[in-house]
């Protein structure tokens, strides 16, 4: 006779134990992705704003085009950051609505990103590396939110919604 534990007493591996907290993990990952994205958007916007020589801009009647472009870039990024923050807030308070809003926000980011990629070949509006970074994080967010774990935020209807049954 050996002293091996009975099968029911063998502790479960960590990833299985965690399954009872899956919803909380899904929420945390979604929030983290959204907040990171918002932080990147606003971080880039702030860095762009701070790199502008505002004294020079005030003294000149018509600021140089390069400075104007920088300001426009920064202004474009702010609403995306705000939208993502709003999505994170909704996800925390009303997860189902938040999931939908977040998916729409990610779609907008990807759509604008693709449009800029296709039309702004001279890279006047964007710095390509930042553009790729935004796209990459948005892809990650979409992939996660479309996964069964990400869809836990949709609540009880996940996988059994009327739409799913229809199509």
């Amino acid at each position, binding site marked *: 006779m050996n002293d091996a534990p009975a099968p029911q007493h063998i502790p479960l591996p960590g990833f299985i134990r965690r399954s009872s907290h899956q919803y909380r993990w899904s929420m945390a990952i979604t929030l983290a992705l959204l907040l990171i994205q918002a932080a990147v958007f606003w971080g880039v916007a702030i860095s762009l704003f701070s790199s502008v020589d505002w004294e020079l801009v005030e003294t000149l009647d018509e600021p140089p085009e390069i400075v104007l472009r920088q300001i426009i870039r920064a202004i474009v990024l702010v609403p995306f950051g705000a939208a993502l923050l709003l999505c994170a807030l909704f996800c925390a308070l009303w997860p189902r609505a938040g999931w939908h809003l977040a998916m729409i926000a990610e779609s907008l980011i990807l759509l604008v990103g693709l449009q800029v990629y296709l039309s702004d070949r001279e890279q006047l509006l964007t710095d390509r590396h930042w553009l790729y970074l935004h796209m*990459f994080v948005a892809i990650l967010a979409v992939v996660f939110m479309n996964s069964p774990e990400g869809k836990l935020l*949709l609540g009880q209807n996940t996988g059994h919604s009327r739409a799913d049954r229809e199509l």
Partner: protein
Amino acid sequence: MMDTTQQIALLRRYEPIIRFTRGEEFFPMDAEAYIRACSLWIKRPGEPPQELIPAGALTPETLAMPYEDEYGTVRFLQFTEPLSAAEMAVQALRQRHAEDAALEEFRVGQGRLARVGYASRVVDALFRVALLARGRVPGDAAAAASLGYRTLLLQDPRYVYHGRVYEERGWVVLQYWFFYLYNNWRTRFSGANDHEADWEMICLYLARDADNVLRPEWVAYASHDYAGDDLRRHWEDPEVQKVDNHPVIYAGAGSHAAYFSPGEYLTKIELNALTPVTRTLRRVQRVWKRLMRETGADSVPGTPEEPVLAIPFVDYARGDGFAIGPGQDAPWDEPVRIDESVGWVRNYRGLWGLYTQDPFAGEDAPAGPMFNRDGTVRRAWYDPVGWAGLDKVPPSSEQLAIVRRQRQEIVDRRTLLRAQVEEKTALLRGLDIQATSIRNQPHLRLVHEQTLREIKALSNEIAKLQAEITAASVVLENLDRHEDLLLAGGAQPLRVHLRRAHAPATLNQPGASGVAELWAAISVTVLLVAFVLLFYFNPRFLPAWLVSILALFAFIEAGVRGAFTRAVSRFATALAIAATLVLVYEFFWWIVGVTVLTLALYILWDNLREFARTRRPIR
């Protein structure tokens, strides 16, 4: 074989009841009365149609005269003559002032366009535009046919069906053919087509029981040229409504298609011209569903696929109007028995109404009960059993014998397989002994290798035979269970043969609201106008705007139809895939490098973990 009197008696015993929708204008009539009111025409290739026999001179006997025509020639009957201005005015007044209560009683239900997606709406718009160019029944034909039918009905107020009794493979098939003077589905009920003359049919399948008494077992209703298992129901199926022994048919308004249950049926018609496109779309859909792990990705084999890019039409089979049959508003008159001995059935292969030369054929009149439009014999005529998928189904009284015969065949096969296994096992063992005995003899290397190959092949063969024996045993167990069920007189599965049975559309489904109806009516036009405006006023960001507008429309539609989550998910995923392709294109070698590095690190980590585990002392 039954004589004519017996056949008529049998037909009458099970003659159906037809319940029409309010507003129906045409009812089953005697085909010979129609023939007498028609003219006979011929259309030879490259020539305008010519009248062969004028109206009034045509009789069923003259129509039955055998004839020869060159290839491409079409013979057709014509009932309606264009209305005069006065007749048109009378007809318009009649409708406007609701002289006929039934005409005014029909109210459309939920619009057909609100029940389908954009693609179908666009195809529908194209189909309707095409109707202006292709051949169709003239606009006043329906009105003229209505007047003509009323005149005939005044002269001969009878409701008649044509009956055929056919015996084949243990079945006695009762075919009830209904002849309608006109199909006004398009002009009166927003359906797919109009045509002169309409032949509809149902089949009742009877079999002899143990006491040699004929009993009905199955019934099949013809509907829009469909064929196969989905057409038929078991006689005991609750869906088959019966009054005494008379099955109830719910006839589609204008189309006269036959249904088992009252309701509004959404019929989607796919155009043959779009087959390559629909095939591609189906493949894309299947891949997408599998990729997204959506429901329906793994459909049951043999299940017909949902039509894509199909034009939707609603068939109103409400059954709230006039009813014909035993104990109904009007009884059937003496049936007209038909078979190949009837001249006009056998010899007239032409169309029974106006030949419009419609390339889709929907506006051309049908041929007679025996023929397709191209003159070939209908399957429903020469093989009524196979037409409803009954060729594989034995009558109830034969089932037990068939189960036992099938069981015996499998038992015999299994015995044979076991004998083969034993024989091959003996051979295999001999070969193995041989291989063992010569394994260390260098001069027998080739023989040894050949023996090993034979051993491998034989071993595989035995494995296959064993698998077949196991499968046969499992089948035998199930056959035994089935036999027990039959012996105990247990309930037979009534609906297992149905793959996609046509069911009435649910009226309370999402999209039944007025908003959905309005949106369905205007959406395609708004979409096209938006495209044009965009093209002229903002061509610079055209791709993004196009995608945005399409997405906006898709979201509105999805919201209206209660499928918003799926629409959002699909749209985001599609964009993510496009963005991923961009990143792969831009960073291909980086991605390859990172992947290889990750793989290398994973292998290192895995190996080190295993190494550490082997060094850990066992407690």
